[in-house]
């Protein structure tokens, strides 16, 4: 008997490879977490099942399976608390909803303060969060030392830990499982999932967008829902719409597998690093974006170098860990560090973008809210404040404090 005959067979595929049809009620462009979740909720909550998700590469090959999976809702403004907390509540029942494991672990997220302005910003945010009913707390350095014993909370570091915000219900999940779970559940309800299908242009008629040209032929639709993250500006540009977005490389890295030493997510805006330890044991770390516009899915090495220096300063025992792998995604950043959700200047076209460095946590939340917006052809109340026109009215939702270190 040959070796291969003794090996187990290939496991069942989680979803089919669908062939594109000529026409759909709704075409979702982008097979990341947001596009897949949107398609799922269109089918599940609104009975709209004649839906295709078009993905130019493979499912979750964009930012979805490149992110560091931090999930939290402790943003400053009421509008943000609204949508991020809606999402966190959906995370809390997502495994039952999708009937699949996503390894959602509510291990808490700590945001360290290293100077007076960090303390002021953090305490202000905790107060704002508590007014919004969120589980936010302020911890002093001693309490942080008890929570995370491997963190150096003495006054030795160049930027000592002076305190921090803590959200116990925050945590991490396994990002690829989340994408696959939404894909499988959406397809079971009738959604077509079409990979290796790049949208290359649009057909319009008056104030309607009627179809897309793709690398797998033309497809027409009733409604269009863009969800292309880092490439949203490129796609909107093909429709003649200029979005207030800049696309930047954002990197992350993992160490080799280590014993479990860290059961809380720790983030620091001031020294610019954040870290969690995955279930398997690798340390997962991220930092800031490269300053320049970039679509190459490659970041600059000096960002990694600075991030490692910061990590070792905070966690002296990391000094002997080895970096196993680094990578980058392309994140679409808005001027106020908040997303854009709503109508494009066409009757039947919508956009969800601008989540920048922090949209993984929003996956179920924005999926449900965006699906509702597209289904009812009006903004869902949680999406309304994030409409494109806020840049004209001046009603910005400035989350630079809550989003200062990429996550």
């Amino acid at each position, binding site marked *: 008997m040959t070796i291969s005959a003794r090996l187990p067979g290939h496991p069942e595929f989680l979803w089919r490879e669908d062939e594109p049809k000529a026409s759909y009620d709704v075409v979702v462009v982008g097979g990341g977490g947001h596009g897949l979740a949107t398609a799922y909720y269109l089918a599940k909550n609104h009975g709209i099942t004649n839906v295709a998700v078009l993905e130019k590469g493979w499912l979750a090959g964009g930012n979805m399976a490149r992110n560091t999976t931090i999930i939290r809702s402790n943003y400053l403004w009421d509008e943000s608390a609204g949508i991020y907390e809606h999402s966190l509540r959906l995370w809390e029942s997502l495994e039952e909803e999708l009937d699949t494991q996503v390894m959602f672990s509510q291990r808490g997220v700590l945001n360290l303060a290293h100077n007076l302005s960090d303390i002021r910003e953090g305490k202000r945010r905790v107060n704002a969060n508590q007014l919004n009913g969120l589980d936010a707390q302020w911890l002093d350095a001693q309490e942080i030392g008890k929570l995370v014993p491997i963190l150096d909370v003495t006054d030795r570091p160049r930027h000592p830990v002076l305190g921090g915000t803590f959200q116990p219900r925050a945590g991490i999940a396994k990002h690829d499982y989340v994408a696959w779970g939404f894909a499988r559940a959406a397809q079971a309800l009738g959604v077509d999932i079409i990979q290796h299908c790049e949208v290359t242009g649009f057909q319009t008629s008056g104030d309607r967008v009627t179809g897309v040209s793709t690398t797998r032929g033309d497809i027409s639709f009733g409604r269009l829902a863009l969800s292309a993250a880092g490439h949203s500006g490129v796609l909107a540009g093909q429709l003649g719409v200029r979005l207030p977005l800049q696309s930047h490389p954002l990197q992350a890295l993992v160490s080799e597998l280590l014993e479990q030493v860290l059961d809380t997510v720790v983030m620091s805006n001031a020294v610019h690093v954040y870290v969690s330890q995955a279930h398997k044991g690798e340390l997962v770390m991220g930092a800031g974006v490269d300053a320049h516009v970039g*679509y190459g899915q490659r970041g600059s090495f000096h960002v990694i170098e600075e991030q490692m220096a910061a990590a070792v300063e905070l966690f002296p025992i990391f000094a002997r860990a080895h970096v196993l792998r680094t990578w980058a995604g392309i994140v679409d950043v808005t001027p106020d560090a908040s997303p854009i959700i709503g109508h494009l200047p066409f009757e039947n076209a919508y956009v969800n973008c601008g989540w920048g460095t922090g949209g993984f946590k929003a996956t179920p939340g924005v999926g449900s809210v965006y699906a509702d917006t597209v289904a009812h052809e009006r903004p869902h109340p949680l999406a309304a404040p994030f409409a494109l026109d806020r840049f004209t009215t001046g009603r910005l939702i400035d989350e630079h404090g809550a989003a200062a270190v990429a996550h």
Partner: protein
Amino acid sequence: MLRIPCPHCGERDATEFHYGAAAGVDYPTDPAALTDGEWAAYLFVRANPRGWFRERWFHAAGCRLWFHVERHTVTDQVRTVREGAA
């Protein structure tokens, strides 16, 4: 690392520079005459192409002058460099 050819000092590591985003965005000559939409476009909307891009860089750790670079945003290849702050 991204390398930027300064027209005055030659090619250096990007860490010596400060990024200035899209080139050729002039302050409006008569801001009060703009509609809200035009003002928003001036304040918030910048070119963000996948491909060739004219952008500004400032050589903070060198000659301390602003200049223009035409860079490809996928390959980081630089095609032209030009002196001048505008």
